[in-house]
């Protein structure tokens, strides 16, 4: 019994020390980590909706979105976090929309694990800038290997149709869900 008790005590002791040390480290680092995440969020929102003075997080049902206002309190747009499956994994976006949801003010690819050099090029500014001013009705689309002639279309990354299509589908799907909520 003595041996078993000693084993139990030692294990518990180490577990407690571990828990204690980590709680301390967490207390110190948590505010920094939180600040980092908020800063990232802020940067991506400012990136996709122009003219923002302030924004507010809203949650309706399952959707989280940001209502963006200018200095006089007018709603200048919405920033919508969206995610879905790409070619190799999950793609996370931030989509900026005009207040009536008819036009995209910009997108930001936050996270992706697509093929580097091909699908990975959706992270390039050139691809993302295309979405500025794109109309959302009836739906956003894409074309391959030519300049788009409709104001709802963008040009897919050459050789990365699936990744580009995934981005477009994620945007469309989330705008539809968003329309139902607003």
């Amino acid at each position, binding site marked *: 019994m003595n041996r078993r008790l000693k084993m139990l005590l*030692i294990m518990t002791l180490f577990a407690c020390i*571990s828990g204690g040390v980590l709680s301390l480290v967490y207390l110190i*680092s948590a505010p920094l980590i939180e600040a980092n995440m908020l800063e990232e969020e802020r940067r991506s929102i400012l990136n996709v909706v122009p003219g923002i003075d302030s924004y507010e997080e809203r949650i309706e049902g399952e959707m989280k979105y940001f209502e963006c206002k200018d200095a006089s309190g007018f709603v200048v747009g919405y920033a919508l976090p969206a995610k879905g499956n790409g070619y190799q994994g999950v793609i996370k976006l931030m989509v900026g929309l005009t207040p009536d949801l008819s036009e995209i003010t910009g997108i930001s690819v936050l996270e992706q694990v697509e*093929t580097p050099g091909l699908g990975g090029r959706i992270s390039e500014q050139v691809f993302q800038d295309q979405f500025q001013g794109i109309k959302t009705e009836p739906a956003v689309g894409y074309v391959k290997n030519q300049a788009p002639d409709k104001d709802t279309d963008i040009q897919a990354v050459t050789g990365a149709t699936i990744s580009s299509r995934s981005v477009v589908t994620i945007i469309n799907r989330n705008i539809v869900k968003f329309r139902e909520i607003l």
Partner: protein
Amino acid sequence: MAAKDDRKSVGVEFVKGFWKENPILVMLLGMCPTLAVTTSVINGLTMGLAVVFVLTCSSLIVSIVRNIIPKQVRIPVFIVIIATFVTMVDLFLKAFLLDLSKALGPFIPLIVVNCIILGRAEAFASKKGVFLSVVDALGVSFGFTITLVILGGIREVLGMRTFFGHPVLGEGFEPWIVMLLPPGAFITLGLLLGVKNSIDKRLKEKRSR
């Protein structure tokens, strides 16, 4: 006389981690993070330094408490100690180096099950004094880091034309994207192992002449 032997053994203990007992190329440990994070030099370097921290601190603590811990529970205790330091590294990266934390992803917490660390604790730190344990830990983890940097360097140069973020190959070179993907990782490591083995063989032949 004893002092000179000690100094020699300290040097030997440190250097063995680089070649003779290289954790990746000889002991074949820690393969998982090796393959996953060597897509670039900075990623490999960061992982390597994280392991330096965790291995050194763990070996230090294990060596200090080695006589208090009953044999039967030594593995769980080692694991708790290792997991604690890994959590510290993870929180540190998330707070101060967020981009690197994201690039290394789940492989930072996976340092917990990195056989290198548990292996050193079991084979060395739980049996030897504090100073030697730390020296051993530093040697092995630096050997690990250098191997990661070499592998990362090869994959980054061939896959992205850059080294540590700086372009080294001109636009004329079409990057071998496969280097950044799993097949490239496996094959490069396999070839690197083959190179080390053939160098070893040649050294052995030279010595026997």
